[in-house]
């Protein structure tokens, strides 16, 4: 990557040498995993470009927006309602949590047996490697799991943090709690941005975010064709980029990608041979640049056709009712939609099991690979129930627990290959 951004990165107080090293590794990683694929769609150039400018152009845009008085809000979870942030004319970005670059620094302030995602965001901050975190006026945490909950207390020593309380059950009182949290968040965003959120602005934001969800739904529908017209990795990338690129540009570009995909599907063209086993991923989120497992799967003679994950259908499945006329109605619509999220932090969480089985059937997959980050208790425990539900539906499942390190890639390959041999 060029050095035209050095001054900006320096201003953001990044560790320039370490950051240059990170970009180099990321570039090589992306080349190996993405650019080496054959038969990619032209529309992927947009995503390639966004990745090549991941710490460059997009950060410059954020800086320019800040100079024009807009605020930047960083998040780590699909529970944080972007609609409220956008309604206050602020920009929301999903923060870097998919690489182990800052692991050593993170382990100075966190126990070693903390999940890789938490270590990653703390590490990025402590090692001054992430220009997104450094651009944020506010970082919004949430109480999805104990690890994150406690880590935000530590994170708050380094950057302004606001935490939303996520309910753990779905009873009437939990809904009340979540509505109160939604309103408290709205107040906080209004305070930080010094703007008032009007019903008209909120409705506009709801429509914008819905349109992004719709285009990702369309992508998911098209990629499910047979033969499979796009690699699972490419769709995962689109989902990952949806968290931080400009929503209007993203929706427009993915729309074009979908048009192209539609032609390919119409022509019956596949990106892999027809007999390639179709698999589905389920479980923990895969934040950029965590492409390890999808890459292992797709190098083992299978293709991924669905991601039951926060970086996947959990984020795009449900839309917000758009037509509320008052602030109350719009907030209620948001509460409705966000309470439908089937994160493993809920108990009980039967919806997730139903969704997984339904999705696996709709996608006609040969098997499901459940992905858990090491030390992520909610998903690890729930994986046993997922396996049972899938077994009852006659669908085999492989459970993989791993982190961002590369030392277990060979073992993972053996397991995944054996699973592919088994389901073929």
């Amino acid at each position, binding site marked *: 990557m060029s050095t035209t951004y050095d001054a900006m990165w320096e201003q953001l107080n990044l560790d320039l040498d370490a950051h240059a090293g990170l970009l180099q590794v990321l570039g090589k990683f992306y080349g190996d995993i993405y650019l080496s694929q054959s038969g990619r769609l032209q529309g992927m150039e947009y995503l390639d470009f966004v990745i090549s400018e991941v710490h460059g152009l997009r950060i410059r845009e954020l800086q320019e927006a800040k100079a024009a008085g807009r605020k930047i809000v960083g998040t780590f979870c699909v529970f944080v309602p972007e609609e409220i942030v956008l309604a206050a004319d602020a920009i929301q970005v999903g923060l870097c949590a998919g690489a182990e670059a800052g692991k050593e620094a993170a382990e100075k302030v966190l126990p070693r047996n903390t999940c890789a995602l938490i270590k990653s965001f703390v590490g990025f901050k402590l090692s001054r490697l992430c220009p997104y975190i450094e651009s944020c006026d506010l970082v919004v945490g949430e109480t999805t799991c104990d690890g994150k909950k406690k880590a935000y207390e530590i994170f708050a020593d380094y950057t302004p943090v606001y935490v939303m309380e996520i309910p753990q059950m779905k009873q009437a009182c939990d809904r009340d709690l979540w509505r109160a949290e939604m309103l408290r968040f709205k107040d906080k965003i209004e305070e930080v941005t010094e703007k008032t959120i009007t019903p008209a602005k909120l409705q506009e934001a709801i429509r914008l975010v819905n349109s992004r969800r719709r285009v990702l739904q369309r992508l998911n529908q098209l990629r499910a064709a047979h033969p499979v017209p796009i690699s699972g990795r490419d769709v995962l990338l689109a989902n990952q980029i949806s968290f931080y690129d400009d929503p209007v540009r993203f929706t427009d570009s993915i729309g074009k990608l979908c048009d192209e995909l539609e032609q390919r599907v119409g022509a019956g063209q596949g990106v892999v041979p027809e007999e390639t086993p179709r698999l589905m991923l389920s479980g923990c989120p895969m934040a950029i640049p965590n492409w390890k497992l999808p890459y292992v799967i797709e190098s083992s003679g299978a293709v991924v056709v669905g991601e039951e994950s926060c970086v996947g259908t959990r984020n795009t499945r449900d839309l917000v009712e758009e037509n509320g006329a008052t602030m109350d109605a719009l907030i209620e619509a948001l509460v409705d939609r966000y309470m439908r999220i089937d994160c493993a932090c809920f108990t009980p969480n039967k919806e997730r099991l139903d969704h997984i089985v339904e999705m696996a059937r709709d996608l006609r997959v040969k098997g499901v690979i459940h992905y858990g980050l090491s030390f992520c208790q909610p998903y690890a425990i729930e994986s046993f129930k997922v396996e049972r539900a899938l077994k009852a539906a006659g669908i085999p499942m492989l459970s993989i627990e791993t982190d961002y390190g590369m030392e*277990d890639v060979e073992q993972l390959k*053996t397991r995944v290959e054996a699973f592919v041999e*088994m389901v073929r």
Partner: protein
Amino acid sequence: MNDLSSVAGIDIGSRSIELVVFEGESLIRQVKAPTTFDPLAQCEKLMDGMSVKQIVATGYGRKLFADSFRDLKVTAITEIQAYALGARYLFPEARTVLDIGGQDTKVILLAPHGKVAKFEMNDRCAAGTGKFLEFMATALQIPLDEFGEFALRSDKRIQINSMCTVFAESEATSLMARGERPENIAMGLHLAIIQRTVAMLRRVGMEAPLVFAGGVAHNPCARKVLEEHLNASVIVPAEPDMVGAIGAALHGMGKGWGLKPTILHPAASN
């Protein structure tokens, strides 16, 4: 040997490499060598100028092998598939296969018709594998191939709690410092690895009969303790570490599932 109707299977594991050659339906050769730091040189030594119609590689080094011997017709399958095929061939009634190798423990549940139905492998570290026993034998200064017999001379059963190889060594050292008989410590170490293995067997929903393969199946103490814990007898092939190589060769011969059970027990051809 220069027979182009023959098919070889090679299992390149972390500790040892096994090679078998089938000519027609007959197993005509089976050899073994340590893996060392140069597995490819060892493979070459084992192949010793032989030429075969095709080779199927399995084990940790399968990809390396396939990439390096490009002039041969090499395919690669996973150890899971290879052990399942090999065990089912040797014992058509087998429903579960246990392979404790150098750095992996694998448990494979077979469907009644013989296909792999489910499998489990140990996590990324070598806890509870052959490597663990090897490390502990060294710590107790007992040759590895005598370690099982040595443990069988124990007069009481002590619990070793650590499954991590490094922690278990500290635990063994403190037991020695307390004057515990080394035979009892050795038994405790065998118990630790078998308890972990039995938990894996339970997780896949083990069905009898169980075939116990892989290098550790040579160890009489491991076999005895396993049978005690399962309260059932297990089948140990005459050459338990050849099962993966045999399965690989069978794959190359196009022997899918449901083979004729008539053919050679490898011991008979030895």
